[in-house]
């Protein structure tokens, strides 16, 4: 049923696509977490206008599909004078999408850190930025690590949507081989297996990181 010779011959192309998938998900995750953390910190602040703007951004992103964000980045932005190569259009869309979700995850982590610790840090002379960097964020990240892990696993899978605009990631490579060989079952099983290896490896890595970050918590 599964043509292992075809899978073996297709493997270099599929792995090349998997590498692009990892690049998209990795960079999307990096920019998403950076921008999302920044938004999460601002959203936990007291400036009502900024909080309202971030809420609107989150509603807009969460309420529309990622496929539309990718289409927007690739087809609409050039009409507004911003032309991005297809690879970066995908990363921009995925990063901005991820940042909205990450901001809310980080915000919940920040609110879970006791206000007493923030007050103690203030009396010790730490500035607001130092309190965020040295006291709040390390603890907030530990608290939200499982949720962030889920978000990044979703990101690896959702990066397949970039195939719509022609990014040669894993799904796209698989579809090209399938249209050439017409052996959908062999190719898509191989593609699914590669996705599974990537997401499982990430899950194991996150579990290890979680254990390491929880070493100060009494069992």
């Amino acid at each position, binding site marked *: 049923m599964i043509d292992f010779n075809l899978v073996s011959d297709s493997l270099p192309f599929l792995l090349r696509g998997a590498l692009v998938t990892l690049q998209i998900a990795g960079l999307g995750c990096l920019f998403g977490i950076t921008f999302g953390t920044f938004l999460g910190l601002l959203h936990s602040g007291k400036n009502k206008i900024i909080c309202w703007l971030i809420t609107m951004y989150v509603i807009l992103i969460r309420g529309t599909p990622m496929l539309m964000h990718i289409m927007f980045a690739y087809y609409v932005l050039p009409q507004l004078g911003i032309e991005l190569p297809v690879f970066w259009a995908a990363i921009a869309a995925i990063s901005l999408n991820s940042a909205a979700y990450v901001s809310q995850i980080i915000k919940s982590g920040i609110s879970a850190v006791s206000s007493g610790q923030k007050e103690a840090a203030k009396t010790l*002379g730490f500035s607001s930025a130092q309190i965020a960097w*040295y006291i709040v964020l390390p603890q907030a990240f*530990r608290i939200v690590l499982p949720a962030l892990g889920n978000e990044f696993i979703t990101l690896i899978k959702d990066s397949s949507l970039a195939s719509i605009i022609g990014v040669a990631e894993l799904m796209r490579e698989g579809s090209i081989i399938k249209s050439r060989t017409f052996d959908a079952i062999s190719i898509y099983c191989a593609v699914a297996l590669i996705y599974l290896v990537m997401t499982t490896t990430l899950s194991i890595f996150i579990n290890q990181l979680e254990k390491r970050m929880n070493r*100060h918590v009494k069992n």
Partner: protein
Amino acid sequence: MLKIKNLTTVFGTKKVLDDISLSVDKGQIAVLLGSSGVGKSTLLRVLNNLEKCGQGEVFLDDKKLDLTTVNQTHTIGMVFQNFNLFEHLTVEQNITLALEKVQNMTPEKAHDIAIKLLTSYGLKDKGKSYVSQLSGGQKQRLAIVRTLALKPNVICLDEPTSALDPLLTTYVAGTIQELAAQGFVVLVATHDVMLLEKLSCTIHLMKDGKIIESADSKAFFNNREQYKKLNDFVAGTQEA
């Protein structure tokens, strides 16, 4: 000497501190005593710039203090009721972080200060432990050490024995007395009469944001009626 003059703080429409005036000499302990919600902790929080001061002035050695900068100058230090230790850091890092990042000390110098203080407070072997691995008494001592490391002139302790058993209360009383003996101005907010019995201090009875009576602790504990009055006052059954 720490001198508080006519300090008033309002939350919304409620006066939480009403014309508070008191002075505490170096090496002396002032205890703010009263039941919950009378403004004891608020006074300590105002002095530590955790709440806005409405009116009034605070002087340290006749020099007027700008309460908005006390955290940066480390003039006044605070030991919190729930300790508020940094749970993701080790015992030693709880002390060295502010020394390195706020006072720009080298890690070696900060380490030396931390070890010296931890040794004096019986926590030397706990330097690499995390906060969750400490007992209540050890957490209390670490909270005091963390404040002391920054060398404040005034140390405020908010309900220092509320989370401790009677044996540890005796130990903490000894520590507070020691702080005063080292020349710190010590301000304690408490409703724990058992702690007072073990301290040589001035007691300021507080009610509805006001100091309604001040006297040496001996005056309360050497007189049976006064002692009963004190207990009733803390329980909220007497006007003082």
